[in-house]
């Protein structure tokens, strides 16, 4: 597979001023400022393949945004190398900007008081698009993102979901090869979130668009990405496929049962989460007790009326990883 992004030993550190509270300390800080070194990103390496959707996640302040800024050429690294589509971002920032698109969920690139069409028109000129190419692309994006009904309404009157659809569409006006999505589903309701995810997936599959996604929403990762990179305190703490991640962290299964008689398990690795009459909810550590073992034991003692086996939610897996780091 062709690699479109290669990051090697990338690091970024900067100095930040520290000052204790109070007037006296403020004066002290004026005369003798004290600085501390902050290592925002520490020697991270990874690559992104053409046409994949990669999740780049981590808690607040983990270094995600700094990494993206270095990948798009906005920040200079302290050391390490980055190659995006054959370019060194901070040396060829302008050239690279024609090949990449970006959407920052919390920061709009639309003009608030004007209809979306004006922002599309501006972006077309900013990216120096040919008038005919622009018209064709606009027609395609309007159809695909279903923007017709609000293309002529001021952006300030759009719902958040409509605005995000416009934001993603406008970032694609110049047909970028890589799309950087920073929290694209933040603040959206479940229905709109799924619409946005479907659109991203569709773009990826039809246009072979590479997507570099950062999100706090585990649903985005689970539903869109094949691979996930977890970063914390500037360090890369996990790099695997979403399936491997689930497998590695899914040592426990949740068993929800409706039985004929009251039953209390006495097997190592099985914890009772809830018991009410013949209803029972168990957590089974599969490294100590197989599902077969516990079900056999239940059947030996009583009969099963109803049963549901569920996995640990992805959200909890991510939380475990963050806490572990």
């Amino acid at each position, binding site marked *: 597979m062709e690699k479109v992004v290669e990051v090697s030993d990338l690091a970024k550190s900067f100095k930040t001023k520290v000052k204790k509270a109070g007037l006296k300390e403020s004066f002290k800080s004026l005369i003798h400022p004290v600085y501390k070194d902050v290592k925002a990103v520490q020697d991270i390496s990874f690559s992104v393949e053409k046409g994949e959707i990669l999740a780049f996640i981590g808690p607040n302040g983990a270094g995600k945004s700094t990494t993206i800024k270095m990948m798009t050429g906005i*920040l200079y690294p302290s050391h390490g190398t980055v190659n995006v589509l054959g370019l060194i971002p901070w040396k060829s920032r302008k050239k690279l900007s024609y090949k990449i698109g970006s959407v920052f969920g919390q920061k709009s690139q639309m*003009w608030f008081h004007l209809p979306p069409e004006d922002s599309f028109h501006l972006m077309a000129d900013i990216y120096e698009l040919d008038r005919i190419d622009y018209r064709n692309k606009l027609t395609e994006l309007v159809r695909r993102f279903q923007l017709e009904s609000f293309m002529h309404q001021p952006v300030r009157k759009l719902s958040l979901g409509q605005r995000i659809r416009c934001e993603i569409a406008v970032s694609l006006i110049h047909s970028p090869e890589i799309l950087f999505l920073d929290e694209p589903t933040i603040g959206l309701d479940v229905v709109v979130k799924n619409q946005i995810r479907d659109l991203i997936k569709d773009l990826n599959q039809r246009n072979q668009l590479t997507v570099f996604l950062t999100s706090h929403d585990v649903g985005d990762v689970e539903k869109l990405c094949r691979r996930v990179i977890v970063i914390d305190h500037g360090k890369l703490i996990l790099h695997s496929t979403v399936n491997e991640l689930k497998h590695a962290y899914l040592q426990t299964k949740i068993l929800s049962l409706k039985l004929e008689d009251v039953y209390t398990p006495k097997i190592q690795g099985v914890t009772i989460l809830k018991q009410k009459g013949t209803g029972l909810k168990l957590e089974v550590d599969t490294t100590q007790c197989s599902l077969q073992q516990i079900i056999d034991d239940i059947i030996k003692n009583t009969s099963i009326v109803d049963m549901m086996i569920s996995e640990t939610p992805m959200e909890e897996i991510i939380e475990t990883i963050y806490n572990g780091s």
Partner: protein
Amino acid sequence: MAMKSLKKYLTIFQITFVNDLMYTRNFIGQFMFFGLFLFVYSFLWRAVFKDGQIEGFSFVKMMWYFMFTESIMLAKFVFHREMAQDIKTGDIAYHLNKPYSYMLFMYAKYMSSSLVRMFMNLLFGSVILFVTLHEAPITPVNLILGVFSSITGLTINFTFYFLIGMSAFWFEENTAFHFIYSKFLFTVGGLFIPIQFFPDWLKQLSDKLPFMYILNAPAKVYIEGVDEFIRVFPLQLLHVCIWGGLIGMLFIVGTKKLAINGG
């Protein structure tokens, strides 16, 4: 290629213009403020000029001078706060990853907003003065040259607003810089009192500073025409080059500083 590059800034200019039309009510407030200024100062200048002319200025000429300086002063689109905020929050990054010059982007926005307001002010102020004074010491040629000089004056002002906004790369608080700058415009910029009224030493000092080329010089061109234009316009262009070059260089240094603060 150069045309395409220029077109993007013209589109930014055009979009800002359309966007500003959404704030038409602000114009009414500004006109009321402007009208009040003209009214109050007419009493002051009538008293000052009751015995005749000062340095070639009559009461009527002084009122038109004041109208021109105020038209420019009130037209300036104040963007340094927005820019400083962008730098402090890191939002400037969203501009830097687009294929345009941030400086020219801001210039196109600034000029679009400022020019609309300046032309509206000139129209409003001229009507008021013409109706009340029945005299206008200006010719169509003066007007055209005055507009060129005003645009250049606004450009010099842009470099200072950009400089103040950019100071956020190094300083956490920059409102004091704007305060000091506006006071320079009030005094040695010739907003209320023409530089020509100053003692010789201060007149000479003001000639060397950039502030009079923002307000005093264009206002004098409107009133005095070709000769004044030939004298001040090259100096205005010189200031645009000096300060424009300086902000260009400092911005490059600043964005490297952003690299240090960023994240």
